[in-house]
């Protein structure tokens, strides 16, 4: 069973779009997590299936 039932381009069952949801792009927590994630991928690379 699909979680999301797409009704139109920007409306899903159980998911609504709200301008009240703030962007966390500059949140220090997010920036730290992204740096850690980038370090991880740069260290271990990607699955072979994705690099062929």
């Amino acid at each position, binding site marked *: 069973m699909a979680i*999301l039932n797409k009704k139109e381009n920007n409306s899903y069952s159980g998911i609504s779009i709200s301008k009240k949801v703030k962007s966390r*792009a500059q949140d220090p927590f997010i920036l730290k997590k992204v740096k850690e994630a980038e370090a991880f991928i740069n260290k271990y690379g990607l699955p072979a299936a*994705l690099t062929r």
Partner: protein
Amino acid sequence: MTHYPLETNPEYLDYEFLSIGPKGEIRKLVRFTRMEVADTSLDIYNLAFGDYDKVGNTIDDDIITDNKDPNQVLLTVAAAVLAFTERQPEVLVFVQGNTPVRMRYYTMGIATHLDGTLKGFDIWGNIDEEWELFQPNRRYIGLLARRKATVAGV
């Protein structure tokens, strides 16, 4: 079981929902951020997830809420992944738990939904510094997921 109602912003990068349980209503945040990775043209997004910390107006993934709804919370995070990748089906989503316990929580959640919600995804886990196709009951330190090329929608 259904996921909690989710709200997202028009960019489909930030998601919020309320976990409801014995501890009350706990505001949860999910954020997808594009990563800068060397030697690839693939678009890879980091998935960050945690509780809203109103003191610091930030996200906190150290908190163990124990609101007795872990499966519903994971299902809701999965719904965010579905909504995000519906918009950008070619991207990879990377997840790394902040602790081995959290990582095991994610791994168990994925295993639970592998034949259902996540059936349309290729998922890889990193173990012993190597990537492999996802298998249940493995102690992964990082996970990558991408919609299968044949999936045209949810």
